């Protein structure tokens, strides 16, 4: 019997990433035989735009690289510029930076948990988890004025202080997450249907994760003990207890499957709560910015010469920024690396041998901000017959699979 494979393209529009994706799958029956990735359909040339602007303007551009990591990119960018220009950040500002970054991690991971539930067909869990996410968004709005794109980061410090009166409100939100965490864990990690759909699905071995330079929860779920906050503590993380979370903490084993990636993300929510509590205890008083006058700061940056790197462990993995200043208004080089850039290669080993109905959850499992896996064309090479599968159809396939295998 000749082996007839179908080719299924998925994508290409994917606006929440810097590099939107097109997938081309070779399908035999229900199984994926070959995966081709083709990103770049919506490359916005942000680095190019940045190199026409001064470093303070770039902060706001960096904030908009990703709608969810809107604290991570400016965090790494400011660090890179500070390293290049030799600016010391006041300790209090370092703590405020960490608090904002960890609040962002809580909202990002809970958002992801909701998306994962939706991909499996548990829409009630999606609504419940996104309801839980509202609390941290409200807190971020209370602290910074915005639910996303906080505008808090500035080269040499932060723009907004956290006052004594605001601390009880932060503690209240942290208590809320401690209270509901048990429920979240029960829903995601003990539910037999979620276990059936995610255990041994989309496996990424430790070796593959290392070779493909995976980062963040994707790497940690495969057993790589890698977390910039732990390995090369920057900012206030140098004073705080941070340990990379691998799934064996919870289940005693590392499989590198979708279930393990859920474990890592959920445990990181608890870890973030603990980190913020440590921050509130240890936060020193003092200045929040090295240079208050922006004109003076710009002048200083204009005269600076040097290069620096900035790294931050974003919710999805390490964000890496490289900046070279050369005594000019604009930086000579600005290179930004988002975590999905490294993680996209890991889709290939994860997806091989999986079923079409598993594509949504496996693709979502690296948390690529899967906003618009918007259209899928099924092309029958033999008779040129075309069928278009929308995201809705694909989602329906996934829901049907969940119903089918639920006892």
């Amino acid at each position, binding site marked *: 019997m000749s082996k007839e494979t179908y080719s299924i393209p998925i994508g290409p529009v994917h606006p929440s990433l810097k590099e939107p994706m097109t997938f081309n799958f070779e399908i035999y029956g229900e199984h994926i035989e070959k995966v081709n990735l083709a990103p770049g359909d919506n490359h916005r040339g942000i680095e190019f735009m940045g190199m026409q602007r001064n470093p303070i303007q770039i902060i706001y551009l960096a904030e908009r690289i990703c709608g969810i990591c809107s604290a991570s990119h400016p965090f790494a960018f400011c660090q890179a510029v500070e390293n290049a220009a030799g600016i010391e950040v006041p300790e209090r500002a370092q703590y405020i930076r960490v608090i904002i970054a960890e609040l962002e991690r809580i909202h990002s991971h809970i958002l992801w948990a909701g998306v994962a539930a939706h991909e499996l067909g548990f829409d009630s869990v999606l609504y419940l988890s996104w309801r839980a996410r509202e609390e941290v968004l409200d807190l971020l709005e209370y602290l910074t004025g915005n639910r996303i794109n906080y505008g808090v980061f500035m080269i040499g410090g932060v723009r907004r202080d956290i006052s004594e009166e605001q601390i009880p409100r932060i503690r209240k939100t942290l208590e809320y997450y401690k209270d509901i965490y048990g429920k979240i864990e029960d829903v995601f990690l003990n539910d037999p249907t979620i276990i059936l759909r995610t255990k041994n699905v989309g496996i990424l071995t430790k070796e593959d994760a290392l070779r493909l330079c995976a980062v963040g929860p994707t790497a940690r779920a495969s057993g790589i003990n890698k977390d910039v906050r732990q390995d*090369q503590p920057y900012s206030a993380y140098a004073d705080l207890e941070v340990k990379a979370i691998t799934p064996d903490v919870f289940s005693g084993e590392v499989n590198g499957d979708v279930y393990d990636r859920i474990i890592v993300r959920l445990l990181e929510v608890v870890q973030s709560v603990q980190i913020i509590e440590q921050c509130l205890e240890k936060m020193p008083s003092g200045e929040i910015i090295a240079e208050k006058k922006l004109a003076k700061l710009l002048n200083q940056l204009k005269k600076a010469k040097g290069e620096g790197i900035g790294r931050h462990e974003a919710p999805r993995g390490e964000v890496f920024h*490289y900046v*070279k200043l050369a005594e000019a208004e604009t930086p000579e*080089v600005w290179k930004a*690396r988002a975590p999905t850039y490294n993680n996209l290669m890991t889709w290939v080993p994860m997806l091989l041998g999986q079923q079409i109905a598993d594509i949504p959850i496996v693709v979502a499992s690296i948390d690529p901000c899967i906003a618009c896996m918007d259209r899928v064309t099924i092309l029958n090479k033999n008779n040129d017959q075309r069928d278009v599968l929308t995201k809705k159809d694909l989602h329906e396939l996934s829901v049907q699979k969940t119903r089918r295998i639920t006892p």
Partner: protein
Amino acid sequence: MEYIKPEKIVELFKEKFNGSIINSRIETKTAGLTKNNYNIIRLQINSEDLKDAVKLLSTLDFPHLAIISGNDMGEEIELIYHFSIYYGERFKEISIGLSIHLSKKDLRIATITDLVPGAQVTEREMKEMMGITFEGLPDLPNLFLPQNFSKNIYPFRRDEKGIYPLSVNGNYVGNNIVKKEEVKKIE
């Protein structure tokens, strides 16, 4: 795992390449109230030594490649391979940047995808954006640029192969798409 000090790593490199290390620098940064520090190493090496350098790094730990950054410096293009090793242990990770200067007359360098497969995406980016030829990298379709993008234009370049408007400190250069006079007219 045995952790080697940054100074020792630089020495190892100098030993291995018989002094062909053009430049080396160790930066120490501090963070937090406790002023814990971490190290960043920058080594400038010859382009033909890159593969051996990555092999040498692999003997210490599996090198994690963050990205390759490129910089058009006029006569030369600088590529920096941003590696890190010794992750997994608190305060131990060291960032290592391997810098390579390629003359514009000969923009070829060996691929490292056989040693670090994760380098494929970033090598393809540098190929499209900077016009570097990675020897041994399969000729795959464009990853970041549209498939029908001109083969002679490299967006990250600042010379005549770059794109308009490309401002280097206020001066427009590059004449691929719009001529200089027309640029002035538009302005």
